[in-house]
Structure formats: structure tokens, C-alpha cells
């Protein structure tokens, strides 16, 4: 079976004081190839834990992740990751960062040069390819992180709030870029975000998670990502369904937050 299957995953963290936290409980979902799914939820709902399990950085307490028919046992090049803060390698220039994956695989420059140059062009980094990482702005650094991930040609791209640290304008531009790259490359993408607007605009599917224990609360299928490819994202936001869905999800997350607060107050 192709695609990515998350099969009945539970994750429990044991704390040093002897108690334990149920971060995820019985989470199951399936992504077909080329699907873009955004994941929303209040803080503490296990979004990042889920992503780390899919990436292979964490082993789930129960359940398994199956990728194109084989079980995930650790990080691998087929599942690329884009972090909130670039996690770029400061000791390399932009181009060496982007070509990191192919170089680790042992490819010769002649094998990856064309692909890397193409990605540098697409992400608008052509004129910055010899710059050092610390000379770039935050938005530029995230472009490098995207290009570095794509250069490795992974089947799935996992994005952990990749645009969270950017200012509003840069963020909008980068959202357009993510959509464009998704359509061009046809990659499967899981995108974690805190922004409801971003989740609506970019997610073909949208997953709302609930906390304590982390579980899937509701799933949407949305038309906006397809509408947004190559179009003005601000026009997409005028779509009547857009405002309605946004309000619905905001309401949902507010209720969850209030429930958490209420529980905290009751505990006191």
C-alpha cells in the first residue's frame, strides 16, 4: 500500500517523579501520496509528538507508522523535516546546506548540481547561494530549510510550524511558496501550525486535535489549497466557506482551551 499510514498510535511519557503523561491516544490516519494535511490544535495536544513519531525521532508506546508498506523504525531520507527555526548548519554556506542530503548519500556534484541550482532558483535563493547562514533573514533561512529538504527528494515532508517565527508579510509570501512547491513536486506534506488561517489556506485536509490525551477531534476536507495554487491568497480568503470554517474551528479550539483552563482551576 502506498502512502503514509499512522496505525493506532499511543504515546506515553514517563516523568521523573513517577507519574506519566498520555501525549497521544489511539491516533490513526492515512495519507495518500501527494496529499497536504495541516494539523491544528491547542498547545499540548501532541502535534509535535505525532510529527516526531512519523519522522522516526521517537518510538511510539503502541501502534506503528507504515510508510509505503514498510514499518518506520527511525529517521530516514524518505521523510524530510522542516523545523520552526531552520536547524540549518551555520558552518556551511547556503548551497552546501541545500546539497547536504545528496552529499551524505555520496552523490557526485555532477549528479546533484542541476537539481540544487533549480531549487535555489525556485526558492529565490540564487543570489544568496554563497552567503553564510547567519547573514540571512529569518524568511530566507526558512527558504533554505525548504530547499534543503526538497533537494533530498523525500516522499513525505514533515513541517513543524515552519513559518511560525516569521512576520506576517513574509509568512504570506512563504505560504504561497509552500503551495507552489507542493503542486510542482507532488509531495505528501504534513504541516503543523498554530495559525488557523494557515491551516485553512494550505491544508487539503485539516486535522483538529484535542489535548489530554492527544487525539483526533475532527477532520475537514477543504478546497482552498487547490484554489490558492498560483492565485492570490487574499482572494481565497474572501471565499464564503472560508470565513465560516475559520469561525467554526476557532470556536472549537477556544472551547478546548477553556476546558483546559477550567480543569486547571478545578485542580487548584
Amino acid at each position, binding site marked *: 500500500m502506498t502512502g503514509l499510514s499512522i496505525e493506532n498510535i499511543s504515546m506515553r511519557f514517563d516523568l521523573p517523579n513517577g507519574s506519566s503523561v498520555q501525549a497521544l491516544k489511539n491516533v490513526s490516519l492515512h495519507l495518500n501520496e501527494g496529499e497536504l494535511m495541516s494539523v491544528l490544535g491547542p498547545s499540548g495536544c501532541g502535534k509535535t509528538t505525532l510529527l516526531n513519531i512519523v519522522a522516526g525521532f521517537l518510538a511510539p508506546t503502541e501502534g506503528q507508522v507504515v510508510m509505503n508498506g514498510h514499518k518506520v523504525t527511525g529517521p530516514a531520507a524518505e521523510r524530510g523535516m522542516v523545523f520552526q527555526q531552520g536547524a*540549518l548548519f551555520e558552518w556551511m554556506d547556503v548551497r552546501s546546506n541545500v546539497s547536504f542530503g545528496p552529499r551524505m548519500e555520496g552523490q557526485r556534484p555532477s549528479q546533484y548540481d542541476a537539481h540544487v541550482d533549480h531549487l535555489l532558483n525556485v526558492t529565490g535563493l540564487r543570489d544568496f547561494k554563497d552567503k553564510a547562514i547567519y547573514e540571512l533573514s529569518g524568511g530566507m533561512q526558512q527558504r533554505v530549510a525548504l530547499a534543503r529538504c526538497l533537494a533530498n527528494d523525500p516522499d513525505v515532508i514533515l513541517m513543524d510550524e515552519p513559518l511560525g517565527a516569521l512576520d506576517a508579510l513574509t509568512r504570506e509570501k512563504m505560504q504561497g511558496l509552500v503551495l507552489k512547491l507542493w503542486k510542482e513536486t507532488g509531495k505528501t506534506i504534513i504541516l503543523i501550525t498554530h495559525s488557523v488561517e494557515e491551516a485553512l489556506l494550505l491544508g487539503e485536509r485539516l486535522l483538529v486535535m484535542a489535548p489530554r490525551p492527544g487525539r483526533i477531534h475532527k477532520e475537514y476536507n477543504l478546497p482552498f489549497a487547490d484554489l490558492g495554487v498560483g492565485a492570490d491568497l487574499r482572494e481565497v480568503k474572501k471565499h464564503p466557506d472560508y470565513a465560516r470554517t475559520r469561525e467554526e474551528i476557532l470556536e472549537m479550539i477556544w472551547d478546548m482551551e477553556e476546558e483546559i483552563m477550567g480543569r486547571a482551576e478545578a485542580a487548584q
Partner: protein
Amino acid sequence: MIGSVILLVYVAIFVLSFLAVRFLVHKTTRDFTSLKTVTFGDESAVTSNRIASIVSVTTVFLIWGSFTGSSWVPGFLHAPGPFVGETSFTYTLETADGVRDDATVYVKVADFGQETESIEAAPGEGIAKDDAVAMNASRTATILFDRNDEVTRKDGARVVAIDGIAIGAGDEIRTETGRFALTDKGAISFAPPSGLQMEPIWLPPPEDVVGRVVEIANEGYRDSTLWRHLGYSLFRVIAGFVFGALLGIPLGYAMGLSDWFRGWFEPIVEFMRPVPPLALIPLVIIWFGIGETGKIILLFLASLWIMAIAARAGVSGVNISKVHAAYSLGASKFQVMRHVIMPNSLPEIFTGARVAMGVCWGTVVAAELVAASEGAGMMIMVASKFQLTDIVLMGIILIGVIGFGIDILMRKAESVLVPWKGRS
């Protein structure tokens, strides 16, 4: 006495140059910083004042030259020197019978370090005869005035006045000629005015020190040229540091990457780290003698723990998302080590290397002070035994300059090799 005068002069120059610069120079420079609303308390607005640094260094040399009578400092800036030349005073002798007679003592005072020239004086009339004394500046001469007198102290004669001023046992009188006192046995103790200048044996003038540099650079000291002495010290530092880094960095990596290594070596490293390398000198000399091996082992031990701790901190300091990123880009364990953990630890290692070089340089000088046949510290040590203060000063200045040079080189290397340090 001289100390407080020097301190006063120093403080005066500090205050006066500050006021002069404040009112003459800075009045005209109203740059962006001076326009900031908050300049006091804003540490970033405080930069080193170049004029202050220049005046500061000049002042040190000026005071040094002025209080040593240096020929490099114009004469009117010299502190008052000691009395040099010929002088005389009269003493009044009273015999046991109460007979008094005056006699003159002629004194010839030679400059610091000059040979005293003996002088002669005609004995003159009376029971007290004139005397002649040769002495050096800033010294006290005990004048056995009665060697040629007709009546001596054994006969009950004693000095009752100097230059007409009465003096008794235990009194001290000051005249323009100098300071007088009587010793317990009744001899005259005479000190001509000593002025405010330092004797070369305490502090030689700068030109003497420079002269020594030239002399020792050309002719050598204790069978070795200056370059050979400094070269030996540098060689020991570099050899000790290289061995320390060669073992310390892998040890630090191992401690940062394996719990077994960390558990095994942590007690040793944490125990050895606070032991000053100087405290190891006696043990190293007992075990390895005073030759090169002992010194290099000492410096190796001085740098080993610093480098191990720096490398461990470098490994522990790696942002876990960088490691995750490298794994999800398909890197193997070895590749993560080679391309992420090692370069990521370089800034910490460089900081450690700078500290280690500083410690090694200080330790090598101390070790050479204890025992060595060549080296900067040995030069100082031997010179101090012969009271060759100019060589001691020369050694201290060269040690400071080289230590400073090493640090500048390390910082240059750091900015070239790890330009991303502190900027990620």
C-alpha cells in the same frame, strides 16, 4: 613616600587629561551616540576611549622615565634626583673635660652605581680634625669622625652639635646638607638628600631595559640567546597544548556522546579541573625531573582538562533539531558526527583553546622559575638572584607581550575558522 608621590602624579594626570579631553576634544564631536537619550547605563554606548588608552600608556612610561631619571624624558620632567657631588658639614666635639672644638667633614657623593672616589682633606687645627668621606647617592654613611681626632669616643668625647644644631643620642636632625643622627656608639650617621628618584637596582630606567633587550638578543644570557630562551618557552607551551588538545578533545567528545565514558571520566576531570597546574610542579619534578619531559607533561596536564571540558560542552551544546535534521536528510551516525557535531563544537573548542593557551603560558613561566636551563622564566629567576632588575623587567615585559600576542593570534584564527560563533 615615593609611592604616594607617584600615585598622586598618576591620579593628577588621569583627572587632568580627562578634563582636557572632555572640554577640548569631545565638545566638538556630537555623534549619534551622544544624541541617544539614554547613554548612561547603556553598556553598548560605552566604547574604549582611544585617547584615554594612548594617554594611559604614555603616562606609565612617562612616570617610569621621570622617576628613574631616564635620558628619554626631558630633564624638566624628572623627579628631583638625589644629591650628587661634594658637600660638607661641621661637627662640634666635646671632650669629657667639657672642651669643645669644631671640625669639618668633606663628603663626596657619587651617583647611583658609580664607583666612589676617595677624597682627601687636610686635618686642620684643634683637637677635632677634619675628615673626608666618599659615598653613593641615597646611601647612609656612618662617619667614624674620631679616627684622626686627638680625643676619641673611648676617652669620653662625643658629638654635641652638627652645623651648630645641638644633637644627642637618638636625635635625628635635618639640615639642607642632609639627615644626621648619632649611632648607639656615638658615630655620625649621615644621609644626603635622596630625592624622589628610584635607584636602578629597584627600577632601572626604560633605556636600560631596552639596552638589555638589544644586548641579550645579540650576545645571549646564560649561554643562550634571547630568542632561544623565548623559543624554548613557546615550544614547551605549544607542545604541551598540542598533546593536551590531541587527547582532551576526543576525551571530551567521548564524554559528550557516551554515558559510560562520561561516568568513568567525570570524577577524574572534575577533580583535576580545580587543581591549579602550579600545584603539580613539585610532583612533576619528582617524577620526571627538571628536563623538557617534565615541563611538557605539566603543560599537557594544564591544557588537557580545559580542552576536555570545552569539547564536552561543545557536544552537549548542539541543538537537537540540527541532529534531527541531519538524520532526516539521510545522514549516518558517522556523518552526523563529522558534519554536525564536530563543526558545531568548534566555537566552544576555540574558547577552550584560548583559555588553555593562557593558562599554559602562565604555567610555563612558573615552571621555569622553579627549575630550568633555558626559558623566559629561568632568565628572570637567575637575573633576580644577581639583582639585575633590568633583565627581570625585560623578561616580564616580553612575557606579557608574547601572552598578548598569543591571544590576538587565537582570536584571529577564531574569526577566520568559526565566523558563525555567537551569531546563530
